[in-house]
């Protein structure tokens, strides 16, 4: 009985995610990554469509890092980044929007390019 109580105390706690994560993600995407890619495309260091593709790669890469972090928290404990808030009202469009942009880009790319 005492062992069970000690084990319960020693088990790593999983804490709720902070609310501001999506704002940080959007800030990184639109204030840091997008301008860098735009400048690279403007000076022709990067093909314009490669810049657009790179932007979507960044979105999916950030989602990958976040989901990997949350998976590690589920396994070993710690503070979640978005898990548990991903379903919160108001957050759904952040999940859907990148995919809409990606699908629009891909189909627009081969339909009009």
């Amino acid at each position: 009985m005492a062992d069970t109580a000690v084990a319960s105390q020693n088990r790593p706690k999983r804490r709720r995610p902070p609310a501001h994560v999506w704002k940080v993600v959007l800030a990184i995407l639109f204030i840091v990554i997008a301008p860098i890619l735009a400048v690279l495309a403007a000076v022709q260091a990067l093909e314009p469509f490669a810049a657009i593709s790179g932007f979507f790669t960044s979105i999916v890469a950030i989602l990958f890092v976040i989901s990997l972090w949350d998976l590690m928290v589920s396994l070993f404990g710690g503070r979640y980044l978005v898990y548990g808030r991903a379903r919160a009202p108001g957050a759904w469009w952040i999940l859907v929007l990148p995919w809409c942009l990606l699908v629009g880009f891909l189909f627009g790319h081969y339909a009009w390019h």
Partner: protein
Amino acid sequence: MPGTRGPSAKRYGRLVVSQIAALTLVFTSGWYLSRIHDVLSRDTSPAACVSAGQLLTTLGHDARLAVASVCFFFIGGLLAHFDVPSAVETAPQKTAENLLVKHSAPASNDMVRSTIVVQAALVLFLLVGVGLLGYETWAVNSSHGEPPAYWPITWYVRCAAALDRNVSLVIASLVSFLVGHWLWYRPARRQ
């Protein structure tokens, strides 16, 4: 048995439609890949699959693909909304999430384990997405103004589109339908 209900007719209908769409997509994509392989393995490749410039000439500006894709994206999403799971049906999943997020869930909990499996599948899916998009970015950038050493994925798609417009229209519609169906956020119905 009174009081218990199996999956509704709506759910069966939704599952059947999405499974048929997925299977049709797999078969038509396989057929396309074999055709592209045939075309590229021949010495006299048609102009449609030789270079980006010729691809553009062959394809032109076809708004049908884009319009059909957008329409089927929304149709897929609406079909998902047609059969939203009830709060009772999603209760086990919510319980597992609460165990994970709020408490230190016991490792032997099956619901928690299945939730972690879904999380791991998402990580894998995103990893594959990053890999494919990274390749696409690199290939698009490296082939700028030069004969392509490695084709971007979108060039294969355009090659396929040039081979047969109508089948391309069907495939684009199916992909959009499935993306809209599976990725559209659906909150559970309140009871």
